[in-house]
């Protein structure tokens, strides 16, 4: 069998997805046997130029992790789309915008101001800021354009499969690579490497009636590990999140953060979570409800932690 030609690219992400690939342990050696890795910036010395000179669809599959934040991200996404038969959005950022997507609650200008001018760690008066173009030794250098907001991968290119998770669980990564290598591909547009049921379905904690008078941050409460987190007033998104992760967070005492994204057919994971969470509040008094809600600081950042660009409103509207 001819070796599978693959590329892995890291767009606006933290690098954890690349580590998730390495987390497949000894399997990574099988990957090296099955595949020629033509580009993988974190691990292999491939150049963008090597991709540019390839024939169209020369690559069998490209895995892209990270959201689209800069013109470089978009350029590579488009280039890999053109050169690949199959394009996989790998991890929450490529799938839904991920943590970088939370930047859509602020403007590009505010980010610039904070990062280069107002940051407390910057020497007072230092106004060194990046320029779109600079001249060094007679050469002109430019940096990629920082887009006005964060986009999902499928906002800029056609995506064949989505492999969710922050990061995707190693077993799911393995299964996806094997499925591609053996040509057992699901319908285009499928979310793969996950379950069709919610995280709650796989969670072993006891679930009874949910009525909450007070919400707690995980460190504010000594929790009962046998009992549903939500019933203990600890915010958990398991009920509105795709399973398949192995219930990683609730099993370690943290509420599910929603990284596997919405269930099939759901348009807005955060809205569903809003519904679920407020349904269990045990009060009919507006003032008391308000007080109970104060126990959930910054709700939008919780509900859209991994999927703001994937939500109905996608961003904060400009004033």
């Amino acid at each position, binding site marked *: 069998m001819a070796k599978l030609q693959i590329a892995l690219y890291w767009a606006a992400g933290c690098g954890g997805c690349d580590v998730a690939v390495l987390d497949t342990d000894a399997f990574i050696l099988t990957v090296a046997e099955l595949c020629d890795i033509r580009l993988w910036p974190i691990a292999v010395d491939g150049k963008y130029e090597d991709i540019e000179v390839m024939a169209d669809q020369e690559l069998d599959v490209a895995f892209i992790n990270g959201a689209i934040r800069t013109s470089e991200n978009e350029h590579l996404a488009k280039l890999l789309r053109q050169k690949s038969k199959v394009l996989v959005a790998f991890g929450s950022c490529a799938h839904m915008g991920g943590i970088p997507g939370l930047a859509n609650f602020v403007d590009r200008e505010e980010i610039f101001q904070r990062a280069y001018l107002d940051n407390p760690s910057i020497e007072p008066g230092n106004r060194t800021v990046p320029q779109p173009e600079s001249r060094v030794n007679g050469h002109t250098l430019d940096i990629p354009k920082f887009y006005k907001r964060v986009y999902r991968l499928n906002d800029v290119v056609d995506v064949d499969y989505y492999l969710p998770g922050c990061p995707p669980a190693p077993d799911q990564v393995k299964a996806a690579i094997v499925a591609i290598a053996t040509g057992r591909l699901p319908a285009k547009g499928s979310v793969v490497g996950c379950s069709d049921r919610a995280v709650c379905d796989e969670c072993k904690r006891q679930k009874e009636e949910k009525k909450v008078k007070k919400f707690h941050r995980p460190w504010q409460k000594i929790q009962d590990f046998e009992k549903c987190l939500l019933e203990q007033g600890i915010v958990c998104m398991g009920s509105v999140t795709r399973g398949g992760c192995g219930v990683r967070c609730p099993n370690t005492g943290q509420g599910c953060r929603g990284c596997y994204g919405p269930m099939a057919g759901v348009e807005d994971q955060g809205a569903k979570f809003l519904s679920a*969470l407020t*349904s269990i509040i045990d009060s009919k008094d507006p003032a008391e409800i308000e007080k109970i809600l104060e126990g959930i600081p910054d709700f939008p950042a919780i*509900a859209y932690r991994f999927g703001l660009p994937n939500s*109905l409103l996608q961003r904060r509207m400009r004033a």
Partner: protein
Amino acid sequence: MSYEPRIVGFLCNWCSYTGADLAGTSRIHYPANVRVIRVMCSARVDPTFVLKALRAGADGVLVCGCHPGDCHYTEGNYKAMRRFALLQKALRDFGVEPERVRLEWVSASEGQRFADVVTDMTERLRPLGPSRIKPTLEADAVER
């Protein structure tokens, strides 16, 4: 043509829709800015509906249900009340003015109240101008 706010109204079947009906049969005048969708209960109004209406270009969304204690399904309107409290907070972070989304209790006998609510909401929306949500997201798709 002058700007007319477009309001999507979700009215519960048992109280508010009947109240709106009463406004009609009583020939009470109110602005034609509201487009009414009948739902069985205010608790049926998934926050997704509100966001979707805003995303599709609505300038305001009005949710009406039975007064607290009067819900046909005993507690549905309390669920709506709780959802709405959090939804309002969340919308602030999206840069959506609080006037654009409103929850009101209108009973089956309150035709006049329904008319007053729609009139008041329309007048409060007018000075805000058209919602920026749809044009903003359309522009984002074209120019990054």
